[in-house]
């Protein structure tokens, strides 16, 4: 167990180095830089050139990369050109929002997936099952951003049940109970929008697993022993079917990263996803590279978590 983890973590290091190199080179290959937007005759071109020089943008990419990576290793991710604040602080500010949004999404995803998956698997080929699988097909086909816009339009604007943007009402004071409730209120709709889409694969997995397990010999044995239907499903089928789902948990985290980028932009929810898109369009390199690196690490760690869970629940693949 520990051996596996240590081994995986050691493999992670070159992965992250290669990732950082790739990210950096791709970022630099994009045309323009943070100062391109300053096409403004009132600013002396010499001043812009001086600023480029000061930011090191005129150095060859490998020099810039070395400068960046050595500082990053010391915990200094640099300064955001547009926000004029340290990248670490900026991301920290946004990460809190994204963290809560992702957590809420995960909880909602499983809250939706498990009952639907069970119903669908247990009563397969009934009307309920058809409705549920119908929903999953629509969910697979519907792009996340369309669903999010629809949800925003219907529940935010038409019914007015939810706030339509931001992470908290203007003017609330941090720390109070109302503040916390307000924050939860603000993230419900975006989290639900995302959960409705991300949940469909989990529903399908669960359904297949249950249908599969239902026909296994040990279930027939259990039935033959006279176990009640309730007991068969809860003790035998469900337990066995949930294991692969648990293993997918880590990959779920990776999926959330892509999702939050859309959701945060549609709901004007100031998290890392929104920051990421902004930093790309405006060539705020320091923010962009730091975020890609973070996302990369999150994805790698997510895969690691999945593997670990899998090795716990399924001793067959455990490395001795």
């Amino acid at each position: 167990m520990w051996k596996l983890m240590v081994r995986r973590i050691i493999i992670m290091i070159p992965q992250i180095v290669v990732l950082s190199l790739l990210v950096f080179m791709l970022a630099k290959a994009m045309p323009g830089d943070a100062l391109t937007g300053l096409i403004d005759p009132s600013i002396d071109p010499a001043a812009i050139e001086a600023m480029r020089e000061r930011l090191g943008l005129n150095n060859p990419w490998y020099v810039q990369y070395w400068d960046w990576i050595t500082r990053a290793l010391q915990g200094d991710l640099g300064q955001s050109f547009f926000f004029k604040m340290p990248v670490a602080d900026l991301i920290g500010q946004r990460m809190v929002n994204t963290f809560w949004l992702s957590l809420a999404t995960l909880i909602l995803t499983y809250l939706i997936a498990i009952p639907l998956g069970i119903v669908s698997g247990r009563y397969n080929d009934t009307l309920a099952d058809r409705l549920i699988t119908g929903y999953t097909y629509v969910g697979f086909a519907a792009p996340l951003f369309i669903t999010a816009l629809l949800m925003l339009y219907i529940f935010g604007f038409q019914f007015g049940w939810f706030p339509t943007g931001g992470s908290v009402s203007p003017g609330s004071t941090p720390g109070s109970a109302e503040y916390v409730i307000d924050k939860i209120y603000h993230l419900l709709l975006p989290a639900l929008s995302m959960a409705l889409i991300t949940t469909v694969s989990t529903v399908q997995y669960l359904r297949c697993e249950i249908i599969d397990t239902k026909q296994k010999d040990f279930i027939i044995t259990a039935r033959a022993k006279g176990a009640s239907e309730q007991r068969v499903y809860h003790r035998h089928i469900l337990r066995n079917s949930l294991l692969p789902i648990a293993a997918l948990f880590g990959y779920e985290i990776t999926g959330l990263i892509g999702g939050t980028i859309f959701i945060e932009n549609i709901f004007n929810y100031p998290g890392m996803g929104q920051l990421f898109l902004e930093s790309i369009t405006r060539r705020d390199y320091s923010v962009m590279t730091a975020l890609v690196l973070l996302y990369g690490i999150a994805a790698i760690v997510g895969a690691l978590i999945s593997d670990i869970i899998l090795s716990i629940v399924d001793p067959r693949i455990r490395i001795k």
Partner: protein
Amino acid sequence: MTKAMKGVLTAMLILLLTLAACSSDDSATTDDEVDDSGQDAENAGDDEEEEAEDDGLFSIDDFSNMKASEGDALEGGTITFGLVSDTAFEGTLNYNFYSGNPDAQILQWFDESFLTWDENYVYTQDGAATYETSEDGSVFTFTIRDNVNWHDGEPVTAEDWLFAHEVIGHPDYDGPRYGSDFTNIVGMDEYHNGEADTISGITILNDKQLQIEFINVTPSLVTGSIWTYPLAKHIFGDMEVADMSSSPEVREHPTGFGPFKVETIVPGESVTYVKNEDYWRGEPNLDGVILKVVNPNTVVQELQTGGVDLVSSFPVDQFPDNAEMSNVEWLGIVDRAYTYIGFKLGSWDGEKGEVVPDPDKKVADVNLRKAMWHAVDNTAVAERFYHGLRWNATTLIPPSHPEFHDETNPGITFDPEQAKQILDEAGYEDVTGDGFRETPEGEELVINFASMTGGDIAEPLARYYVQSWNNIGLNVELDMLEFNTFYDRVGQNGDDDPTLDVYMGAWSVGIDVDPTGLYGRNALFNFPRYASEENDRLLAEGVSEAAFDLEYRKEIYQQWQQLMVEEIPVFPTLYRSEVVPVNNRVQNYAIGDGTGVYLYELAVTSDQPLVAE
């Protein structure tokens, strides 16, 4: 089930279309009031959805820039201001450090300029400070009004004004403001280079009076070339210059002397204000203001539900569908901008810092350029793509500068027959019989045309121009480029792409009319790389001492506009307008410059915003 599914699908399809239509908004254009010359308006060909019916044309003449007053204003009340942006605001909340337009929208509520200006962008005596000029115009004496105080009660002093200059001129300053406006102050260069500890051209006469001496005296000085924002020395005085822009005094609890005080800030998404009872013009009507960031995709819904009363801007492509919205009044102004088509006539000499015209360029023949202008029907473009909210442009000084825009100059009108005739006479004839004209020397002529991507109609628009030129027998090849690549190749760094002949861009012009920054011999942003003796002369005359005489200056700029119509280094295609909705309950509100309506007068006629029926 199938029926329900159909309904869902239709709804999704409709949404997809709306999304596509509004995904590119106008947020790219940074339009800050402080800036006094040109700024790039990024989306040259932005974004209008084509409408089926032809009668849906609008005209900017039908819009007022002032909100009509209906009903009685309440005492107090709160309004919500929507900052329309698809990005979070940066939060550099001080005029001396900010750089993005979103931050300027937040700043305007709690801080302001010492000097206000009239509709011709000339400084007036109505602001928090008044000014007098010396006989020769080089020395300005400013007097700050006695009752102008910072939000913490400290008086705003001449010391604070000087301090702003010292910070911006400091080598460690990290904002974008240090430029020609500052180097034009006597002693500023020496201070900036560390040769002097003080700025010799700025003298403090007493607590409330300040004198600034300028090197070059031009009429542009009073149209935005003075730095009119103080920096509170009692707050920032002990701070390192490099740390100021990221300090909590800028980001978390900013201060100013405007009509409202910042109460709370949620970084990147909202700000609340309460009224500043001590405001120098008088106590504001409203109790407070809430500002929140609104995505351009949802701004219509926010307006309809009364979620916002006012917005910073409105995506113009969504206007035709919402022109009848019942709970708002639409205000409109002529935008300080124009779209244009430029011809590459030379290159940039980085060493000398000047343009080098090249008579061998493909489009160096003025007849060719003139024919290309004759060939395009900008009125049709404006009506088909922009519902009349943009219109045919004639000269390079847009009508947003009514004093200087020459209305009598028709530019060059749409006339393809004339275009063909000009080309025939100039020797551009089709000798190979492939349907395209060759150069007078008989060589093949392929003109490379670059345009920017962005928005749904960027490409159809560019294709329309290519088509128009094909119609007069010119072989034009289109290259659609992303913003950054586009300006790299057009030459924002001075290394122009020599294969490029024609490009479509846009400029948003500053409040000062002087076009030297865009068409001067030494201007890097003179992308056509055009220069001529006559152009140099007129541009210099326009900012000479003689030009202090308004009539003379008008005359000069009329001549310059005519020169540009004759020489055609670029030709303007469209002028633009800007429309914004205001909830019907709002009173005393106006957009644009020199309206004489100030934010402290803002009032509402009912407690709650009106909702669309």
